[in-house]
C-alpha cells in the first residue's frame, strides 16, 4: 500500500508566493525521524499503540488527529519528555530514550504553551536559550542577530516579550527553537491562539525555512487545513495510526465529491439510505455524511426518491476530515469518545 516518497502524488498546497518544492533529499543522512512499534500505556489505557513510521530528512510531516488521539503523546516521546513503554524512536538516527542528550541537540521544539519568558526582552530570551545549548560569546550574538533579522524581529529585540502580539511571540518561539541549528523541528498545535493572518505568515515562514535548511518538520495538529499543507500526513485515532500518505493520495479513494445531507430525522434517513439505495454513512453533528465515492447524478436521484426525508444536500470536495471519518467511522471534530456518532451497518437497519 505504501508508496515511495519520490513518487508521491500531488504536492501540498503551498501558500501564494512560495513555489512548491519537493523535500530536499540529503545523501547519506539518516531519516529525520523513525518510530518503530512505539507504545505508551498508562495502566490499562493505551495512549499510543505500537505506532511505526518514518519521516525523511527535510520532510514536512503532520500528525493529524483529535484530542486524545495520541499525537501529543507521540510528540512528547520524540522530544524526550516521556519514556515509551515499548518500541523506539530515533531523531536524526539517535535513539531518544538511549541517548536523550544527543537527541536534544538535534531537536527544536515549539510547544503549544509558550516557553518565552514575558519578563525578559526578545534578545534576552534568545541569549538564555543559547546558554542552555552551550552557546555563548560572539558566536551566540551573531546567531541571535541572524535569527532576529531572519524573523524581522530586529526592531523589537529590546522589548519585553510579554508586550509582543501573539503572532510575534510565536516567531520568537520559532527563533528560540532554531537557535542551536536543530535537524528536526517539532511543533505542537502551532496555530493555537493565532489569528488567520498570523497563521498564514507562520506557515509561510515554515515553508521558507524548510526550503532553505532542509529541516525536517513534524507538526502535531487537529486542524485539517494544516494537515493539507504537509507533504505527508499520519492520521491518528485513539493511539493508533489509521492512515499515512500524502494528503492527495489519502483523499483519492474518496472520489471527487463528498455528499452531506441535512434531514429532519437523520437516523431515519441513514436507515433509508442503507435500505433503499445501498448507501452507507454516518450521522455526525446532526447531518448525514454518505461514505465512499459519490456520483453527482446520485444527488438528484436522492432528492426524487426521498423528498420528505432530505431538507438539504451538499456536494463538496473531500477533505482530510472526510478521510478521517471514513477510516475511523467517527468525526474529527467530535471528541474521541465518539458519543455523537451513530454508524450504520447493513445488518443493523431497523
Amino acid at each position, binding site marked *: 500500500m505504501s508508496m515511495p516518497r519520490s513518487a508521491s502524488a500531488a504536492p501540498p498546497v503551498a501558500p501564494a508566493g512560495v513555489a512548491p518544492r519537493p523535500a530536499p533529499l540529503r545523501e547519506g543522512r539518516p531519516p529525520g525521524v523513525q518510530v518503530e512499534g512505539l507504545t505508551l500505556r498508562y495502566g490499562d489505557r493505551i495512549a499510543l499503540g505500537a505506532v*511505526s513510521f*518514518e519521516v525523511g530528512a527535510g520532510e514536512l510531516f503532520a500528525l493529524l488527529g483529535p484530542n486524545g488521539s495520541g499525537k501529543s503523546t507521540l510528540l512528547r516521546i520524540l522530544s524526550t519528555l516521556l519514556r515509551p513503554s515499548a518500541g523506539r524512536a530515533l531523531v536524526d538516527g539517535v535513539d531518544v530514550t538511549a541517548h536523550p542528550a544527543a537527541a536534544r541537540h538535534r531537536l527544536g521544539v515549539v510547544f503549544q504553551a509558550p*516557553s518565552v519568558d514575558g519578563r525578559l526582552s526578545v534578545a534576552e530570551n534568545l541569549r538564555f*536559550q543559547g*546558554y*542552555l545549548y552551550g552557546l555563548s560569546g560572539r558566536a551566540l550574538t551573531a546567531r541571535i542577530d541572524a535569527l532576529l533579522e531572519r524573523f524581522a524581529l530586529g526592531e523589537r529585540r529590546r522589548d519585553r516579550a510579554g508586550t509582543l502580539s501573539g503572532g510575534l511571540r510565536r516567531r520568537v518561539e520559532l527563533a528560540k527553537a532554531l537557535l542551536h541549528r536543530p535537524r528536526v523541528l517539532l511543533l505542537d498545535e502551532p496555530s493555537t491562539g493565532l489569528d488567520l493572518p498570523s497563521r498564514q505568515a507562520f506557515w509561510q515562514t515554515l515553508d521558507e525555512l524548510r526550503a532553505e535548511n532542509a529541516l525536517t518538520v513534524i507538526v502535531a495538529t487537529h486542524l485539517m487545513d494544516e494537515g493539507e499543507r504537509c507533504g505527508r500526513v499520519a492520521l491518528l485515532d485513539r493511539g493508533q495510526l489509521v492512515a499515512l500518505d500524502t494528503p492527495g493520495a489519502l483523499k483519492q479513494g474518496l472520489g471527487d465529491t463528498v455528499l452531506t445531507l441535512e434531514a429532519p430525522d437523520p437516523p431515519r434517513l441513514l436507515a433509508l439510505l442503507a435500505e433503499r439505495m445501498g448507501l452507507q454513512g454516518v450521522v455526525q453533528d446532526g447531518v448525514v455524511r454518505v461514505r465512499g465515492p459519490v456520483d453527482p447524478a446520485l444527488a438528484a436521484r436522492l432528492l426524487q426518491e426521498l423528498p420528505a426525508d432530505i431538507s438539504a444536500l451538499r456536494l463538496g470536495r473531500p477533505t482530510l476530515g472526510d478521510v478521517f471519518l471514513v477510516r475511523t467511522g467517527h468525526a474529527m471534530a467530535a471528541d474521541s469518545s465518539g458519543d455523537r456518532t451513530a454508524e450504520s451497518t447493513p445488518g443493523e437497519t431497523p
Partner: protein
Amino acid sequence: MNEGTERGLGRPLAGEGAPPVPSGTLLLLPTWGLFARELLRFVRQPGRVLGSLGTPLLFWLLLGSGFGKTFQPPGLAHGMDYLTYFFPGTVLLVVLFTAIFASISVIQDRTEGFLQGVLVAPVPRLAIVLGKVLGGATLGFGQGLIMLLLAPLAGLTPTLPGFLGACGALFLVSLSLSALGFLFAWRMDSVQSFHAVMNLLLMPMWLLSGAFFSAAGASWWIRAVMDANPLSYGLTALRGALHPAAERAALGVGDPWVAAGVVAAFSVAMLLGAAWVAARPERG
C-alpha cells in the same frame, strides 16, 4: 490498513551516516543562564522586592513596638527591648519570604511553559536545581543583607567579625530555605497548593525558631520541636553573630559555630533532596 508499520522496517534504524554525537550535557553555562535569569526576573518585579522586604519590616515595627515592654519572653535580658529581641527573627523572615517567592517561580516556570523548553534542552537536571536554588539563595541573601544593615536601628551594633558571621549565617539559611522550597515546588503545578506548604511548614518553622519567643518558657513538646527545627539553628548562628556577649549569655544562645554547622548540613541535605526530586522522570 496500517501503512506506517510496513514503512520503515525495510531500512536499518541506525543510519550509517549518523553524525557524531555532540558533547552530551553541559553544566556550567546552563546553570549560569538559569541563575542570571532569576536575578533579572526579580528586579523586573518590584512587587517581589517590596513584598519580601516590606512585609517583615512592617511585622517588626508593628509587633515589636506593639509588644514593647509588656511582652517579655523569659530569658530576655533585663532592659532589652523587644524590638532588639525580635530583630534577628525579622531578618530570617525576610529570607523566608524571598525563598517562598523564589519557590513560587519554580511553579510558574512549569505552568507558564518555560520549564518545558529547558527540559527538552541538553541540560542536566542538576543545572536546573543549581540555577534556581542559587538564584533564590542569592536573592534571599541580598534582601537579608539590606535588612541586616538596619541592625543599628534595633540597638544592635555588631563588630566587623560579627557582621561577617551574620552574613555567613544568612547565606546558609537562604541556601537551605531556597533548596527546601524547590524540593516542594518542583512537582507542584499550582501556586495555591504551595500556599498550603507555606502555611503548614514554612511559617511554623519560622514561628518555632525562637524568632518570636524563646524556648525557655515554652512547654516541653514545643521545646522539642524547636530543638528539631533547622531554622532554630539558623537563628542561633545569627544571634551569636549579632548580639554582644552579655546579651547572648542572658538569652542562653547556644554555640553559633555548632549552629552554623547544623544549618550547613541541612543545606546540603536539602540540595541533595532537590537534586533527587528533579532527577526523577517527569510524569505524563
